[in-house]
């Protein structure tokens, strides 16, 4: 049985006064349930939506492969039982060469031994699994394994992406945001490009924006 949405009015919040870079993030995003919900707190949405875009889509300077990134994010969605993000990332999967069988594997505990995944992919899934389960601080084996395959920068980027995915899962689960067509916040051939990078530099130059303390 479908869960009833929590009673939040569907207005857009006061976003008129806050630059959200909507043309750079994609207009579908701000029109989505997720976008409409987040823009109720525009001063946070201004940063949350782009950081989701950069972390989940990847950037042009990232050396993490989109397929690896997607598998890690799918593992997080499985652990957090997040129908919203499972659907978002599954929609991106075919373009990344992720098969239906692989989707089922990464959603179950069988990914650990599945030959479908390469060693680097399995290490990334393992790390995502441990971070999402809040075991990252202590799990020395998972850390050693991931460090055999990812350098320091990649580890920081993957850990940040996984942590932000956990945040996104909590947000959509707690507010019961219904699954919806792709919003563009998944890996899938569209890394965040230089125009968004340039905009973020300009935003940073203007800190603090709009009186944010």
């Amino acid at each position, binding site marked *: 049985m479908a869960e009833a949405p929590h009673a939040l009015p569907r207005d857009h919040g006061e976003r008129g006064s806050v630059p959200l870079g909507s043309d750079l993030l994609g207009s579908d995003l701000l029109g989505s349930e997720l976008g409409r919900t987040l823009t109720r707190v525009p001063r*946070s949405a201004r940063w*949350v939506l782009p*950081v989701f875009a950069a972390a989940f889509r990847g*950037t042009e300077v990232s050396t993490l492969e989109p397929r690896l990134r997607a598998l890690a994010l799918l593992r997080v969605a499985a652990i957090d039982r997040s129908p919203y993000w499972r659907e978002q990332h599954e929609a991106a999967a075919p373009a990344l060469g992720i098969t239906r069988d692989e989707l089922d594997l990464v959603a179950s505990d069988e990914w650990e031994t599945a030959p479908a995944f390469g060693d680097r992919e399995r290490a990334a899934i393992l790390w995502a699994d441990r971070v999402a389960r809040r075991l990252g601080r202590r799990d020395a084996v998972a*850390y050693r394994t991931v460090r055999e395959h990812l350098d320091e920068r990649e580890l*920081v980027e993957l850990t940040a992406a996984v942590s932000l995915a956990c945040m996104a899962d909590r947000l959509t689960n707690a507010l019961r945001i219904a699954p919806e067509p792709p919003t563009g916040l998944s890996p899938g051939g569209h890394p965040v490009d230089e125009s968004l990078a340039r905009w973020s*530099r300009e935003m*940073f130059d203007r800190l603090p924006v709009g009186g944010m303390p």
Partner: protein
Amino acid sequence: MTDAVRVEQGPPPRVPTIEEPPDAEIDRIFRGAEELLAFVSNFARTIAHAPFLARWAIPMIASIQRGGPDAALDPRLKELVILKTSTRNRCFF
């Protein structure tokens, strides 16, 4: 309280913090962090290894944790929520 936090600090960091900004981009991020949060935290010095994410993540945290002219929650309630979440997650940062 401060002593308890120190005792619980545990094992050393897995990724070295960036002490001196190696380039203009990270220097700008550190200056932004200082402006927003009054100092450059170890969190900022770590996530700056991925500068593109740091540029969004540091202001995001500031905007969520701090109040603002249009904030709906009062700062005391927000701080209580943050403390509760950190304790629940066994985060001593």
